[in-house]
């Protein structure tokens, strides 16, 4: 923060290069800034400023800076679900049609879809993220499941875990990861949280379709897991790391989580937290189905690179984004952070394939992914879902979807508080 402030006050440094501030959401992104600065040969100089480590905190800080017209926000690492809200408030510089074409080339469908709002690109896809089903091969075998070759449903997973006395680790904590789970379940059941027309609609015309059958199915699966033996301890407060810990423990059987866990397993084995050959027993597959025989809508995350609307270095920022989102940068970032790139071609890279043996599942997940609702009022939508669908053990397929839908609409019509 200090660095950004000084950079802003000091103006151009000795080199005379335009100074850019990049608000990053992961410290590892600094490596890319360094690499691009070298390549730029004085065309620009990127300084990084690290945002809070959770999605909501990142949104709050960026939103407040931009609402105040902060000129130091040149480039932002923006969580895609929040992009529509920023774009609608005119906090982001829209990319031109040519730039859109350039930044769309070779990008997987999921990451591309979530960088467009109102038919305009506001974020250059940087990395995509998708959850996979992780399982212990020994447990799956005991239960007679073969998730790698035979898609499994949530109900099958629950049954298999019950049979084998293991757990199904999911993210039940009341934050953005709960929203990811709810959205994936609703979309996989063939529904959606908001109606299609809600995308560009004003607040009082947004329609919540989670009240339909798919919302009930999501509530049923969530409460079944939470109230049964297969729920890991502390499910209602478990985020990604707690899920990983539950999966790594002796009674861990199945888990849905982001691909970063693969590198984390290796680190845990090295630190002695799990057996040395732990990774050998870990298998992965596509995200579980809700309806048997119907492909799951895989969860989608990631980060897009946007340019702040108030930047005084528009051209330099655009150049910098070109470098930061280049496939080379994406590959470097994927290898160091474990977050999967948005460009299709990097999955053909032998180095990536070696480091991520599940590269094919990731690419598939990023292609068939269902973004979270695209709405200028996403913050209120996710906040309402996180209240309505939490705690998971107290959901009811009969009442939860209806109540949550009413709540979303009530909040957006300013008849209720969140």
């Amino acid at each position, binding site marked *: 923060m200090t660095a950004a402030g000084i950079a802003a006050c000091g103006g151009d440094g000795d080199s005379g290069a335009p100074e850019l501030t990049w608000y990053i959401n992961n410290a590892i992104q600094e490596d890319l800034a360094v690499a691009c600065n070298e390549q730029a040969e004085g065309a620009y100089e990127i300084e990084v400023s690290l945002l809070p480590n959770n999605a909501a905190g990142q949104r*709050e800080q960026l939103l*407040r800076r931009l*609402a105040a017209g902060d000129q130091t926000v040149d480039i932002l690492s923006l969580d895609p679900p929040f992009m529509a809200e920023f774009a609608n*408030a005119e906090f982001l510089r829209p990319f031109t049609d040519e730039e859109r074409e350039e930044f769309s080339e070779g990008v997987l469908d999921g990451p591309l879809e979530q960088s467009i709002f109102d038919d305009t690109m506001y974020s250059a896809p940087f990395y995509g993220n998708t959850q996979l089903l992780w399982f212990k091969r020994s447990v799956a075998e005991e239960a007679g499941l073969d998730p790698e070759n035979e898609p499994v449903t949530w109900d099958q997973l629950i049954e298999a875990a019950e049979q084998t006395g293991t757990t199904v680790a999911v993210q039940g904590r009341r*934050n953005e990861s709960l929203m990811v789970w709810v959205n994936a379940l609703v979309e996989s059941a063939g529904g959606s949280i908001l109606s299609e027309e809600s995308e560009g609609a004003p607040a009082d015309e947004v329609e919540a379709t989670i009240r339909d059958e798919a919302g009930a199915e999501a509530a049923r699966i969530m409460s079944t897991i939470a109230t049964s033996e297969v729920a890991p301890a*502390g499910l209602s*407060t478990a985020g990604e790391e707690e899920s990983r810990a539950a999966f790594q423990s002796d009674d861990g059987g199945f888990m849905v989580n982001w691909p970063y866990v693969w590198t984390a397993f290796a680190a845990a084995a090295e630190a002695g937290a799990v057996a040395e050959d732990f990774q050998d027993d870990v298998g992965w597959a596509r995200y579980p189905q809700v309806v048997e025989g119907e492909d799951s809508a895989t969860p989608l995350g990631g980060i897009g690179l946007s340019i702040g609307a108030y930047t005084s270095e528009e051209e330099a920022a655009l150049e910098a984004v070109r470098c930061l989102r280049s496939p080379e940068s994406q590959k470097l970032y994927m290898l160091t952070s474990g977050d999967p790139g948005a460009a299709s071609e990097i999955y053909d890279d032998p180095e990536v394939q070696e480091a991520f043996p599940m590269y094919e599942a990731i690419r598939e997940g990023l292609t068939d992914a269902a973004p979270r609702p695209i709405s200028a009022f996403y913050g209120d939508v996710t906040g309402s879902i996180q209240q309505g669908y939490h*705690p998971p053990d107290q959901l009811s397929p009969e009442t939860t979807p209806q109540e949550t839908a009413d709540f979303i609409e009530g909040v957006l019509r*300013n008849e209720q*508080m969140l």
Partner: protein
Amino acid sequence: MSTTVPAAAGEVREEAARGGGGRDVDRRPRMTDRARKERNLGWLLAGPAFIVMLAVTAYPIANAVWYSLFDFRLTDPDGRSFVGLGNYGLILSDPLFWRQFGVTAGITVVTVAVEFVLGFALALVMHRALFLRKSVRTAILVPYGIITVVSAYAWQYAFTPAYGFVNPLFGTDLNWFGDTLPSLFVICLSEIWKTTPFMSLLLLAGLAQIPSTYIEAAKVDGATAWQRFRKVIVPNMKGAIMVALLFRTLDAFRIFDNVFVMTQGANGTETLSFLAYRQTITRVMIGLGSAVSVILAILVVLIAFLFIKGFKVNLAEQRGGS
């Protein structure tokens, strides 16, 4: 630490002096030239600070009251519209507000009551300690020196099921942050641990004010320890007790940090400050959030008013007594 105590006691007396405004009014006509000049000089010296105070408190308060009359979302500046008292109507008719009011009041009553009893006991210990007096006082005050966010994390880690030490220690298997009551229990515990020293410090100041002759006289008359406590000590430190309870009640009523760190408001643990935060910072609904803040401020003033009326303490009289 011993220097703090007279200073704190002095503050109470200063308040007493300010409370005696009525007498100053009577004196005004007889003011000498010299006194008038001194008063003018006083205003001149205090003036800049007074103006700064107005700028940093009165202006934001007035601004918040003004904003609270609008439907205004930071991400939708064009949609700004005047709604009069609409925001207040929305808040007061929303069950969410009343539930959070209940949670806040509950936390306040529980923590202040426990802190008062514990704080009084600690104040007596600090007052009567014969040896290691300074060390005892310092040890008791340590928790108060810790930043609330830090202590909140420490308590959260201790009670987290996955890696906390509390469950193994007591042989329990409870997800403390998975339900309303256990979450509130930990939140209150952290709050009590952290601020009891503050309570005891204020009470110690009151204890130090009681002339030892009162207690000796009671002893001579054959009063038991309990009688001395009830009939001599407590009545003579009514002012200090009120100040201690008032300060802590106002603080507790605005509780935020512990809830924010431990549960993020999940499981029905939101408090009124959290509600204001969510509307203003998270939802960037500046109008609605300002209205919640204004209501919170009015409630705080109301509490202060009730305390001062309820205790029937005229701090000005205490000045004559001491």
